[in-house]
């Protein structure tokens, strides 16, 4: 499907928001969350630029599944590191092993590879996605963070939807038609980036 001018504008705005977040949005944090958020927003920025340059065809690459895992994993790690100090190491181990599991089950030939790979993606995305979705909302509800921080959770929900749509499409069991997914993807990415940036800034 050909990318429209509007798609490119939406992706460019997404990239600019991600760049803003990398430059000024996370300055006040400690080293580990800074690294985690830089990775998450950095992948979002570079992915947006590559989509603008190469068009939607780039989504056909097998690397997309692995790359699209990095964003929720890194974001959720940053959140856990910042707000759930006692789970830091455990979640770091989950992040690294989750990433390796998604990469290896896609790369190594094995029996029932598609099935194993799909289950692995579902588990890893599920845990990371729920963390990004629930943690900010709970923290806001408890008054630990300002209510605007819940926007990060909404961003998490959007990234979860986007990730699911893309993963099932790649797995050959699309929830929506490819054309519909590609039509909504730039808008979803911009909405997600807006929620994250606003959530971090005003939360």
């Amino acid at each position, binding site marked *: 499907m050909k990318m429209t001018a509007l798609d490119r504008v939406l992706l460019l705005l997404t990239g600019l928001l991600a760049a803003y977040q*990398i*430059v000024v949005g996370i*300055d006040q944090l400690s080293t580990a969350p800074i690294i985690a958020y*830089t990775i998450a927003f950095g992948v979002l*920025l*570079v992915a947006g*630029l*590559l989509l603008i*340059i190469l068009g939607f*065809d780039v989504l056909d690459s097998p690397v997309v599944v692995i790359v699209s895992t990095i964003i929720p994993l890194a974001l959720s790690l940053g959140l856990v590191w910042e707000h759930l100090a006692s789970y830091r190491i455990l979640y770091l181990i989950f992040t690294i092993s989750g990433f390796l599991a998604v990469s290896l089950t896609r790369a190594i030939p094995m029996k029932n590879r598609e099935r194993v790979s799909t289950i692995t993606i579902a588990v890893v995305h599920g845990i990371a996605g729920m963390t990004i979705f629930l943690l900010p909302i709970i923290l806001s509800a408890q008054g630990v963070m300002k209510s605007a921080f819940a926007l990060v959770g909404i961003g998490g929900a959007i990234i979860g939807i986007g990730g699911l749509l893309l993963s099932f499409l790649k797995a050959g069991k699309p929830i929506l038609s490819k054309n519909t997914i590609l039509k909504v993807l730039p808008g979803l990415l911009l909405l997600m980036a807006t929620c994250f940036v606003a959530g971090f800034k005003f939360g």
Partner: protein
Amino acid sequence: MSVQSPIKNQKSKIALYLPLIKSSQTGLLLATGIAGYLSAGTRIGLLTLLGMSFSLFLAISGSTIMNMWYDRDIDAKMKRTHKRSAASGELNQREVFWVGMIISVLGIGWALLIAPLFGLVVFAGWFFDVVVYTLWLKRRTAWSIVWGGISGAMPILAGRVLATGHIDLVGILLALAILFWIPTHTLTFSIKFREDYSNAGIPTFPSTYGDTFTRATIAISSALAALAIGWASVLIGISAGYLRLIAVLTAGLLLLAFATFRVQSEQINFGLFKYASLYMLSSMIILATKAF
């Protein structure tokens, strides 16, 4: 028989000359010069900045027109370039030569008046491009791109020199960054248009050393460009946030460069070509933030 008015004639002539200055390439090189100046973080002299920009614009445009004038015969043999007004014969060749020379002299002369060392660096860029690259080496060796690269590295060095008054390590690193970035740009181009270059008899890396060596060169030079930009950014004292942004953009460049090496795909090759330009423009904007 229709008679065109003199104003219409002048307009159509300007329209024929405009493509000869390769506006995107000239704009990017000018951006590097401005970034080099602003990277010093010194007080911005608006008149100096304007003078620098115009003199650089004229010198770069002049050298590009001279390049087009001399290469009109090979441009005429290439699909991509045969419609250029110097190659297609729409413009008088003598006139093109003199326009190129006058613009060059104006640009370099203006630069020398602003500051002698700045003017010398601008002249070096013109000399490497017109004499060493275009007249001497382009038709003889694939390695001519190194000299084209050195020429392309001069605007950023010139900008830095104008701000600091001398050639410093940061200036050299910035120039090296451009020098190593240029193969990423030109070699991906020579892979994409290999038939064109072959028809014109221009030696290129793909035709001389093959695709694997060319793609390896692209990957290595991208890594070196990224290293030089990173090192210069640290020495300049760019803020941590902008350093993170440069690191992210660099990671994208390296990934694409190594993907080009591993997967021989026209699409990735073209992606790298585009991304490399975007990378350099973004890096220049980031370096320029030092001034504000």
